[in-house]
């Protein structure tokens, strides 16, 4: 019966982004003609290498993608995540700039602010019935403005040892940010699948009217999803600020919404809502980061850098589609028959 397990694995949404990552790694190995890409050494008591970088720098997108998954699952979308990253970083930065405030307080305030912003888009969507793209677009524009206002349009330097650990520290040799994201993923997985929350989210996304008629507080479920997304974005903003020891409210988090949506969709969650896969989103985010690093490694000129990204998306699209899968399946069984 191991074959059926293999088959069910092949049908899981994680397979294709995973295959993409492997392919990219292979491209790197072939290009370098060495295993430098895969090399991981120990420096200063922690792991050091390209793969570690991918995990560390990819953790922000992974985190944002986690929240985005829930929003997309309730058939919404959150364009405000990039701006909320800036807001989170800005709030923490101005509080930390004054020695008097503790790191914990600054972080709590930052997360509270972004969660509140998430709630605001949630309310706009559920209560005022604004279309999700528009509601979060408004927040995207306003959020960036607020972040700039908080920091007065400057990049604020943050020098606090405790805070720096978030984005630069290591736990058990691994980047702390990655450990954090994985822990959050596991936590979310337990909460969503052990409680009925996961089912509620999928139902609300699959057929909103039906779930309301079946007695679900759809509005509450959606608001929570947007709030979670805001929270994740805020935390990602903190990770970013900590990583570069500064809050960049002008440009920080730019285009994160597209990256996160890409990660979620590649990870097998449909943009129309319903069924979702958190793991798929994480792997999708890693795929994106691997691609970025691969382009640095191959020395692709910045001018044509968007093209490989496009090709990757198209490739994943083709792999994911039923049609080509059936075609591949045909090849597979033909081979086996032979």
């Amino acid at each position, binding site marked *: 019966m191991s074959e059926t397990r293999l088959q069910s694995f092949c049908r899981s949404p994680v397979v294709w982004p995973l295959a993409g990552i492997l392919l990219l790694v292979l491209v790197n190995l072939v290009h370098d003609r060495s295993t430098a890409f895969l090399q991981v050494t120990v420096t200063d008591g922690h792991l050091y290498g390209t793969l570690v970088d991918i995990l560390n720098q990819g953790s922000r997108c992974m985190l944002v993608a986690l929240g985005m998954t829930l929003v997309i699952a309730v058939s919404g979308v959150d364009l405000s995540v990039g701006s909320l990253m800036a807001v989170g970083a800005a709030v923490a930065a101005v509080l930390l700039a004054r020695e008097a405030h503790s790191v914990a307080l600054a972080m709590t305030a930052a997360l509270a602010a972004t969660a509140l912003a998430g709630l605001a888009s949630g309310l706009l969507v559920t209560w005022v019935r604004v279309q999700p793209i528009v509601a979060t677009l408004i927040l995207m524009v306003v959020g960036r403005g607020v972040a700039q206002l908080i920091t007065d349009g400057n*990049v604020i330097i943050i020098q606090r040892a405790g805070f720096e650990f978030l984005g630069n520290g290591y736990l058990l040799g691994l980047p702390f940010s990655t450990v954090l994201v994985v822990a959050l993923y596991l936590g979310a997985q337990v909460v969503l699948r052990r409680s009925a929350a996961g089912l509620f989210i999928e139902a609300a996304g699959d057929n909103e009217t039906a779930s309301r008629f079946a007695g679900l507080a759809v509005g509450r479920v959606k608001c929570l999803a947007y709030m979670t997304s805001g929270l994740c974005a805020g935390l990602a903003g903190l990770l970013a600020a900590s990583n570069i020891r500064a809050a960049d409210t002008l440009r920080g988090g730019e285009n994160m919404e597209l990256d996160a949506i890409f990660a979620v969709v590649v990870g097998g969650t449909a943009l129309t809502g319903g069924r979702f896969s958190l793991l798929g989103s994480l792997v999708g985010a890693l795929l994106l980061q691997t691609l970025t690093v691969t382009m640095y490694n191959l020395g692709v000129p910045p*001018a044509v850098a968007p093209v490989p990204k496009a090709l990757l998306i198209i490739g994943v699209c083709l792999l994911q589609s039923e049609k080509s899968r059936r075609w591949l399946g045909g090849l597979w069984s033909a081979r086996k028959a032979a």
Partner: protein
Amino acid sequence: FAPAASAKALKVGFAQTGAESGWRTANTDSMKSEAVARGIDLKFADAQGKPENQIRAVRSFIAQGVDAIIIAPIVTTGWEPVLREAKQAKIPVIVMDRAVQVSDESLYACFIGSDFAEEGRMAADWLAKYTGGKGRILELQGTTGSDPANERRRAFAEGIAKYPDLKVIDSQSGDFQRQQGKEVMEALLKKHGRDFDIVYSHNDDMALGAIQAIEAAGLKPGKDVIIVSIDAIKEGVTAVADGKINCVVECNPLFGPKAYDAVAKIVAGQPVPRKQYNKDGLFDATNAAAALPTRQY
């Protein structure tokens, strides 16, 4: 927040590029505070990085009948039609910060600017002198397609062309952002190991990000790796004083006084020089510490 304009107050429209960096914020502040100081009714327009927004702003200024228009162009081309309109409406235009390409020079009254190409050249010259014309360079480019990135790359390449042993071995875009600068540097460090000597960054933000990556890799920025950058924001100059950056070329954002001087003269019908440059300096280990207390941005 602007004081109520008196009937005779000059009305000046300023089409800013956006708020993409600390440098730009300093530039905007300079223009705004100087306008307040001189009692000028400033119409400020932030184009959010989009050239089309800027053209729209200028056209709106024309419709509003301002006394003069100041433009800090996002791109050098694309100004011809709208400048013609301004000329027809007899509104003088001052081009600031970077030049515009037009077929007819009379379309604008004067240019007050920084010279991105000059900055790139200065960085190349300093580097050639400092290293004796030898070294392998990693370049951190600014936002792809943006004017400063284009100019700083090209002029730098021209500047080092004279030294066959000074070569750019890899060049990636860090989008003028600290985060990207760090990320790109991390990747390049893995790729090139110790086989490079110099980092040339198109702005300070990326350089500061790159320094963090270099330090994390166990190298000493400024010693193991020579770092040259452009802008000279306060944090950058501080890094020079600390010996982490070897040299920053200044790109002075404080245009306010010069710009309004020119406006006043033009409106009064007095002649102004066609081209003026904000004096750009250069900071290295010799003068950074001394300059630090007076840095405004």
